[in-house]
């Protein structure tokens, strides 16, 4: 259940890039603080969000190395 939920969230993070790059009205080209929204999202927000989501929902295994 938890794995499926995480998978959907990561899928949404990925879909955001496609939406900004290929979506209507060139939303990705909007400049925020001098940089395009696509670069902010694809270059900073999405990778960091994916990493944080993974760590938050990561279920450590009971055995194994460090």
């Amino acid at each position, binding site marked *: 259940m938890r794995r499926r939920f995480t998978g959907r969230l*990561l899928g949404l993070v990925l879909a955001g890039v*496609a939406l900004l*790059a290929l979506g209507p009205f060139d939303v*990705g080209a909007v400049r925020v603080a001098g940089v*395009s929204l696509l670069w902010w999202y694809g270059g900073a927000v999405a*990778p960091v969000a994916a*990493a944080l989501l993974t*760590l938050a929902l990561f279920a450590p295994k009971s055995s194994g190395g460090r």
Partner: protein
Amino acid sequence: MIGLRFASLWLGPVLVLGVAAHLYAGAPEGLLLVVLVVLSPCVALLGRRAARAAEASLVTVLLTLLAAGLLLCAGLSLIGDTAGVLGAARWRGIAIAAGCAFALTIWPPAGRWWPWLAPGALLVAWLVLAAVAHASGLGPIAAWSRVASRPAFSFEATSPWVRSGGTFPEAGVLVFAEPHTIRAGSPGVFGVIVGDGGTTSVQEWRPQRGGTLTLRPGDHLSYPAGARLIFENGKRVPGAPRSGIAWADPTADVSRAVELVRFLGLALTFLAGGFPLLRPSAPRTRVGAAVALALALAATGWAEGWAVYAGWAAPDLFLGTVRAGALVALPSLAVDGQGGRRLGGVLLVAVIALFIAGAAALRERIAALARGGGLGSGIALWTGVLGGALVASLWSREPWALLVLVLGFLASTLAPLALASPALPVRAQIAVCAVGLAAFAVGALGGGAGGGALAATLGAYPALLGAPAAWGALRLARPRPA
């Protein structure tokens, strides 16, 4: 340490420099790649652990060995390219990297410290980037804004292509967007495709040294490998995006539907292809996962910064086709004097260290496979794989294409098996891999031969056919509960 080993397996030089090259070239899929480089390890960390295979299949061992060999070949090929860019012989860079990798991977004490190679290499790469940023006098956001507001990417007076000319290591085609007079730096045979009011004609140009030719907008110039040309100061670099806006907000040269299929192909190739590669090495603790993901973020951050500063300081690198290996020339173009050349050399060392770390991680995987299959310590297997990759890399010139091929191949064969639960019997494993591989080959060969943008996309990402076919075969082959 497991987090470092896991990251070493993924963050090879072909991936890191390849992402930087896509971003620098202003490719629409560049930022998707940034996300996929982080997302693939996320999926491997969260993925379900497959039930241990009851019987180790020789086919899966062979497929893994083949994938490892191709990954090593791609890395060595990239290092050969970078050595060539820095003025050394291509074979010399390949031989040094392969020799270091072999020595380190068969020397038992190195097993304790090689996992630190990847973070060390990334740290060095970041320091070189900081030096380039310092020399430019711009912060990353200001540099991005400057690149995005460039009216054109043009040759500058300090460019070596303008002062004394440069040599193209491989044959290719240049497309000119404005009138441009070029000068031959050496004799050669060139083809000029002239577009004149809807009709095209092909002419041959056989200049002596110093011979000139004026090309008009829309003209194509095909050049042979080793051709030396001198370009005009202030003219647009052939092959560069039209302007900074075209670089910052790239639009695809195909319809949005085809571009969406291209995005899907890339995502499927990286996420499904990375899974069987990464999942067996995934750390089991949150600390290990955090270390691995921090390194992936560091690698993508570096690639973005490198692409932006290259766009600002080195428009020359757009010339012809953007090659990942050529990006190591950035310090020599951005930092004046000997310092720039030295920084380029330091970066090459970091690239070789990343390759060695990846090779050591693959060596561990092969050793584990050899033990599981009763094939001994695996040194003979490893020597064969690395030796084969070394020989192949002397001819291979497309490291990125090779990486995409390997990941697509893994997505079409081993990815379904990595998730199969309960473990499949050997015959079923062979059937799944055979179906996936056949569909993958159909996509690769048929897509390449067929016309049209969609066929070209299938040819570029044959996992679009191979992976679903393999998953379908897996569903059919899965044992039914009694």
